[in-house]
């Protein structure tokens, strides 16, 4: 059984359907990557899982129990097992609490410990993220971005979570710091058998961190694959476009890349049928005979319980044919 299963999740903000029928699963100790442009609904999924946004439809199952219908003590207990780390380490820490105090808050809430034990535990948690235990007396403004993100990680570990949602946790950091934080997260995952939902717009980071990857476009998952497969043989043209957009350390750029034209459409008015057909370099824009993309929603026919690509004309199978 998966640690987390999301089934047919829909999240609406007023008239905007930010997440539209999304399903995926994360095994215990595994990492699922979630990529897509801004406005694709990645962060909304994260917020729905930690109950900061309300699921309009669908199920969010933690070890088979649905969070969306749980309440009272059950809900509290389940919530403590799911934690989230935010993108901006400058705004996710309360500037008025010392590092020790903010970890102490969590220990008080979730762990039945005496004051002296908590003090020991705070030191242990800080050492775990490679910070000096003496930093407990300092305030967030005294730390660099990377150190703050380490503090956020230590605070998260304090509640002994099983699933951690990492929402763009390294995008505000310098590359050298980013590498250290990614390494730390992977070490902690191995040590505590954590499951990660790793959200990022940076495909190379997602590739490094994830076992499998979901690619999102306008509130839908267009492709879900094992990481190696996805990057070696993307089936959905949007995935291909995203991969092509990343700078590849090739001087002058990769000459073979097929650039994505245009920008993500207004999510209030998503295009009908395949939502990507207005930008697809292999769709009706380039091949007028591919009218199906305009008329028939590829998501309609797919079994979403396993890996898939929501495309009528997937790239790999085209080549094989």
């Amino acid at each position: 059984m998966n640690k987390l299963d999301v089934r047919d999740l829909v999240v609406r903000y007023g008239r905007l359907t930010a997440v539209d029928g999304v399903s995926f699963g994360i095994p215990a100790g595994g990492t699922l990557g979630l990529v897509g442009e801004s406005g694709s609904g990645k962060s909304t999924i994260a917020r729905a899982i930690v109950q900061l946004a309300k699921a309009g439809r669908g199920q969010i199952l933690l070890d088979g129990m649905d969070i969306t219908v749980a309440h009272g003590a059950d809900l509290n207990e389940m919530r403590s097992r799911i934690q989230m780390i935010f993108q901006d380490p400058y705004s996710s820490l309360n500037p008025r609490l010392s590092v020790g105090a903010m970890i102490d808050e969590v220990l008080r809430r979730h762990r039945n410990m005496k004051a002296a034990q908590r003090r020991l535990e705070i030191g242990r948690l800080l050492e775990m993220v490679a910070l000096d235990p003496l930093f407990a007396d300092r305030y967030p403004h005294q730390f660099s971005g990377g150190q703050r993100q380490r503090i956020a990680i230590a605070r998260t570990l304090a509640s002994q979570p099983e699933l951690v949602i990492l929402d763009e946790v390294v995008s505000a950091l310098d590359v050298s710091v980013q590498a250290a934080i990614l390494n730390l997260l992977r070490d902690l995952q191995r040590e505590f058998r954590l499951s990660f939902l790793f959200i990022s717009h940076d495909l190379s980071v997602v590739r490094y961190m994830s076992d499998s990857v979901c690619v999102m476009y306008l509130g839908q998952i267009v492709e879900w694959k094992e990481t190696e497969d996805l990057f070696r043989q993307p089936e959905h043209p949007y995935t291909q476009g995203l991969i092509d957009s990343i700078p590849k350390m090739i001087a002058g750029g990769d000459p073979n890349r097929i650039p994505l034209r245009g920008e993500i459409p207004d999510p209030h008015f998503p295009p009908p049928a395949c939502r990507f057909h207005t930008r697809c370099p292999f769709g009706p824009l380039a091949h007028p005979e591919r009218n199906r993309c305009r008329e028939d929603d590829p998501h309609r026919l797919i079994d979403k319980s396993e890996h898939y690509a929501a495309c009528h004309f997937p790239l790999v199978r085209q080549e094989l044919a």
Partner: protein
Amino acid sequence: MSRAPAYSDVQAPIYLAFWRTPFFRAFLSSPSGFLALFLAGILFATALLAPLALTKEEVYQRNVRRRLEGPSADHILGTDNLGRDILKRTLYATPLSLQLALSAAGMAIVIGFAAGAVTAYLPGRLRNVALRLIEIMLAFPGILIAIMLVAVVGTSAEGAVLAIGIAFSPSLARVAYTLAAGVAGLDYIASARVLGLSSRRIVARYIIPNIAETLIVVSLNATAAALVAVSSLSFLGLGVQGTQFDWGRLITEGVLRLYQVPLLALAPATAIGITGLTLGYLGEALARGLNPTLWTQTASVQSRSWLQRYFSSETMLLSGSALLLIAFYFLPWFSPDALDPNRTLVTGAAILAGRANLTETAIGSQVALLLLRTGAWIALLLGFLSYFSLRFRRLCAYLGLICGFGAGSYFVSILLADSTNLGAALASARLGFYLGLIATILLIAQVFSDKSATTRGSHNVIHPTSQASVVEADMSLPRPLLQVRGLTVRFDLESGAIAPVNDINLDLAEGEIVGVVGESGSGKSLTALALAQLVPHPGIVSAHYVRLRGEDITRMSAGQLRYFLGSEMAMIFQDPMSSLNPALKIGTQLTEAPRVHRRLSGKDLHRLALDRMADVHISAAERRLRQYPHEFSGGMRQRAMIAMGLMNSPSLIIADEPTTALDVTIQAQIIDVLREINQEQGTTIMLISHDIGVIVEICSRVLVMYAGRIVEDVKVTDLLTTDKHPYTEALIAAVPAFDSNRDEPLASIPGRPPDLDNLPAGCAFAPRCKYVFERCHREAPPLLHVEETHRIACFLRTEPPAEATRE
């Protein structure tokens, strides 16, 4: 790694004396804290002691024979129309005035904050209704509502308090609402909720502490406003009744005789003013005390001497002006015949001479008095000027203070002399003089020790430095467009000077795209800002020369420079939304620069704008030009920014992280646009980015910056093959490559970038470098050629030591 001391090993200090708590130290970290404490102490003492020290008789007893007198030794501020002492009555009114103001403000604060907080947590529609109600109430001036309410509840002191308490609450409710709503949306509140903390705890530990500062400042300002309002009601006869009187009622009595005895109204008015000032300072200082970012910055504050801390130019100016004003107000009343040599008592000249023989010093005293007054006027004038020119601020402040001391001592001496105690008068006058003298010497010493005072002001101009030390770096580029030598950006901070850009030499050839890469704090953006004359305030930019198209911009006048840079250089920033004016149409913003610089007709301008929009691939340009920035998406805005930069056909575009805020797909498009512009129009581009991938993609050459210096200058084609600076090597290794092994940990750079105010002695990268050897800690490596197109600042590459090559 040796075991670090555990957190639990450390004994938390159990008891800290109040004056040693971080709160109190931050409270006093600025002169206004002292001032607040001092003034509040006086106010409090007055309110407490006045009713005890002054008998009812002294305050109420009429003495018609001595009515409407000027200041004298018996009645320091003179008497009112019934012969009562003005000073005593003003002091006696203190407790009642404060009591009324505090109760009115307290009521307004309680009602207002509660209403605001409740509103913030109401569900959507109800919240809007409540908010509109508050706003409607805000539309009426508070004092008018108060007057109306007084008519309802009856004219009495209690009525006035009630009326003002209610009338002032909407504005406080609005503030409380805005603050609570603003904080509620922040990430740390969201993370507290995810961590499962209870609502009560979130409010107590996360929301209130983060808005407390503003609430305190607002509350104390509201108290000051309430004091004015209660006094106004009393002044109008709607407040305090009967034999009671507060400052407002005293003003009523005084206004009728404003031209005979101005002090009658001025004294209570001054009391209101001082109380307002006290509350303002107190709020500011309390807010500072509650801010933990100041609890730990005391180190940098303490690095200044106590003299510098408490005698900052602002305090000087303030105290000087205050003393001056006092002197000006009181001189005429104390010695109306000061110009009569026979009756002049003690003056500055007598003090200077140290002699008590008044007749001999009488004439000298006239001269001294005249000088004093002239000096005071000049100081006052300079004081006003100082607000416009930073360079004069300190100087003016000192002059003001000195003259103030002089005038003050003169005033004291006359005051005492009038009471026929000549000896005491002389003593105090001398004391005043010596104090003034000591202050003067201290201050002059400070002027000379503070060199930065004279260099401030013209900060955003590059100062040419002497050419004697110019190294004509042999970067013989074929067609140099930009040549920069010795570019330095310096900030003189309280903790010492730092140079985030330190003696940079760089050349850009015509038609090149050069990348500048480095971590945050490496100085890459500041280099760009320095070239564009946009370094923020206290920064000082200097260079041996900066030649653009062969012309040295460090030696141009401001007008020339503006014109030259406007037509030759364009700058593109990271966040296109904040660099476009949201109130103007895109078309207007696009045509702004060429309208000024090229004097084109409207039609030509429009055609040019359409061309540029086409260059950056914005379709439906006609329609787009008529739209506002908010109608553009992020990528479109960045295209519009580039189009705007292109309007004057600049020879150089400096792009500072132009794609960092954009999605990868849009980033790829913007990179393509920049590349096209470079190829088709031959525009030179300097691209600043933290992302070495972007740089490799588009640039032909890359400059790597670390701690304010260029550490490597290399062709992109060589970047992945040849021996590099260890920092460049580490930067590239830290990027998760697309074909890297996912099972291996990423190469990270240990440690963190050095603090600019504490750079290591040798190579700044040495503490993090894995190839470091002894020499690296001793001297800083210069940027030297290893090949014709490759410069490195690293001993390992330029002069490798024997043992290091083994590695």
